[in-house]
């Protein structure tokens, strides 16, 4: 087990390293000079050069790469070109929005999807089942940004129940903060819930076809008891897999949703940083996201072992 984890962590680190090289190279060939962008159309050439020097952009590529990587190792993400504050500060400020957003949507989609999946599976073949699954099928097809648009139109513009967007900051109070995350979380979470509900249902149905379900029924368990006691836990593996994938997806989904609701999250930071050619911020955020995805995958794999004892002793 330990061995497995350490191997996975090693692979994760190698993946991160590869990712860092890819990101660095890709961003290196992005056209556009951050210094010129900052100084604008009236700037003189020597002012631009002076600024490049200040930012360290005149150094050769390799040196910049290694000093950046070296910094990362000690937790120093470098200093933003445009904001000229440590990238880490920017990231931590933004994570305070993005992470709750992703987690709330994940929570939302889970608490909706799993009961719906169970409900549908337990009524397999009935009208309720097909009705629920038809709704889920439509849910899967809805692009989250469009859904977001409709939500804003209905709940913020027409009914004025919630703010249309923006984030007052957590110092304005937890409730105020949460309130501004409600619509975005729904926009992100509901389409995901549809996917998850379908996966839950089909995983349950797969499991319900297994021999041990028949054994359990032969013991005298009712259908419902079999569903909860035997099927659910076995169906969790595919559900967990999708949950893991979804988390990565939600993180990416925040990029669009944060723009629709003008939330100051990581997604908008990275978007803005790319247009401003604040490459060091882009690199930092990308590394963070990649690391998160790797970590989440690892956690999901470890949680498999929690669910399924067969995977506990594996190499």
């Amino acid at each position, binding site marked *: 087990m330990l061995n497995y984890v350490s191997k996975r962590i090693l692979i994760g680190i190698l993946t991160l390293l590869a990712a860092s090289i890819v990101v660095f190279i890709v961003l290196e060939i992005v*056209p556009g000079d951050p210094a010129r962008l900052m100084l*604008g159309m009236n*700037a003189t050439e020597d002012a631009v050069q002076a600024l490049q020097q200040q930012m360290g952009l005149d150094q050769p590529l390799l040196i910049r790469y290694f000093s950046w990587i070296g910094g990362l190792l000690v937790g120093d993400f470098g200093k933003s070109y445009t*904001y*000229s504050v440590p990238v880490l500060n920017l990231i931590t*400020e933004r994570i305070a929005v993005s992470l709750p957003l992703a987690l709330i949507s994940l929570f939302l989609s889970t608490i909706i999807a799993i009961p719906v999946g169970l409900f549908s599976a337990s009524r397999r073949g009935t009208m309720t089942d097909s009705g629920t699954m038809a709704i889920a099928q439509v849910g899967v097809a809805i692009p989250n940004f469009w859904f977001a648009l409709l939500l804003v139109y209905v709940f913020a513009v027409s009914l004025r129940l919630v*703010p249309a*967007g923006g984030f007052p900051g957590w110092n304005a109070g937890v409730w105020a903060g949460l309130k501004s995350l409600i619509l975005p979380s729904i926009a992100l979470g509901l389409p995901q819930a549809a996917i998850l509900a379908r996966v839950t249902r089909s995983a349950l149905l797969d499991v319900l076809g297994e021999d041990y379900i028949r054994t359990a029924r032969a013991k005298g368990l009712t259908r419902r008891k079999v569903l909860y006691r035997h099927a659910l836990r076995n169906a969790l593996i595919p559900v967990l897999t999708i949950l893991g994938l979804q988390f990565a997806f939600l993180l990416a989904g925040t990029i669009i949703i944060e723009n629709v609701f*003008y939330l100051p999250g990581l997604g908008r*930071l990275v978007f803005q940083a790319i247009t401003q050619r604040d490459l060091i911020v882009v690199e930092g955020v990308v590394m963070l996201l990649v690391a998160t995805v790797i970590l989440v995958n690892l956690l999901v794999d470890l949680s498999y072992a929690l669910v399924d004892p067969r995977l506990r002793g594996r190499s």
Partner: protein
Amino acid sequence: KTDLVLGVVLEPPHLDPTAGAATAIGEIVYANVFEGLTRINAKGEVLPALAESWTISEDGKLYTFKLHKDVKFHDGTAFDAQDVKFSLDRARDEKSTNPQKPLFASIDTVEIVDPLTVKVTLKQPNGDFLYNMGWAAAVIVAPESADTNKEKPVGTGPFKVDNWAKGSQIVISKNPAYWGTPVALDKATFRIIPDPAAATAALLAGDVQAFPVFPSYEAVPQFQADPRFKVVIGTTEGETVLGMNNKKPPFDNLKVRQAIAHAIDRKTLIDGALFGLGTPIGSFFPPHHPAYIDLTGESAYDPALSKKLLAEAGHPDGFKTTLKLPPPVYARRGGEIIAAELREIGIEAEIIPVEWAQWLEQVFKGKDYDMTIVSHTEPNDLNIFARDNYYFNYDSPAFREVIKQIEATSDTTTRTGLYQQAQKILAADVPAAFLFQLPKTGIWDAKVEGLWENGPIPANDLTAVKWAE
């Protein structure tokens, strides 16, 4: 009520106007946090600021500024001639990263006469000097705080920066130790809302009470119809042009450029891209300026003429070209309309959207483009057509000569004549097709008073803003 939430579209990268060109910086700090020797008011006039008065020598080369006394920076340090010299020298320095370095190019020396008097000697007379000293890039900073102003701006203005939640909002509050007339607001919050739809929603929902430069033209009628809001369509210094690469065939041919200019229907363009809110221009000059002359007739919409000109230029069937568009909505939407109109006369313009960084790199610096649409928002920038190596690749000795004369003249009537002469040259040479003056669409709560109606420079001067009873 003594607090106000304002919406701004762009977040400033930092808050030091002497180190970055972003208009977003000026929109927060100009006149609120930082002040210069002079300042520019809502009408575009030059007024005294930290310099309480000045004298100009006969030859127009020596300016003697008398400074206000008892002025303190936000950190409590005193303001004096030392700071003025430091600021001006720093901006002119070889290592300077001031975005508007040309503003200081005419300065020869800066001398301290006494703590409240500064003498500035110019290399040659400059009619715009006092105006230039009123720009955001020319504000006075203290040597102690100059390097940290990006994050913790320390100025002499009536507001101090309280808090900056990156990506979300910037809060400024009243500076009780201000040397001048105290301001009415205790607190102002600039909320950053880049998305037009969100901006509309935020105003409607009352989350923000003022949007001095509202990003969505199409939503304007909706607010005009709503008595809760005041909608003010003002002017800006933004002459919007369809820039053409004057050295690159076929744009090196005057007839081709004329054909393009005549193919554009400014009314359709303004209706389609700006929902009717811009003013058409026929040359590179703001319509609100006293020296403005209407030259739109020179390039009136006439597709038949365009086709004829094209044929004369040797392109009877038109040609294929590209149109690089930076992100603003006037460019992207305008570009779509212009491309469609050019298609009518046979010119197939492929639309290439670019980001600002790319635009600066490829179009502005690299001159690697055929056509582009951009708004030149700097005030008093007629001279860009006289610059060497500017991205239009326009080269007219006659025009240069006129500009040189303007710069050396302080007399208003002479200048007016020269300005008009310059406008005519441009309208005839068509180095770019002149489209419209960008409007400033301000929308705010009907009870808010004192916000600028026009945008002579990018600023949200809050010194006179208050809530009506």
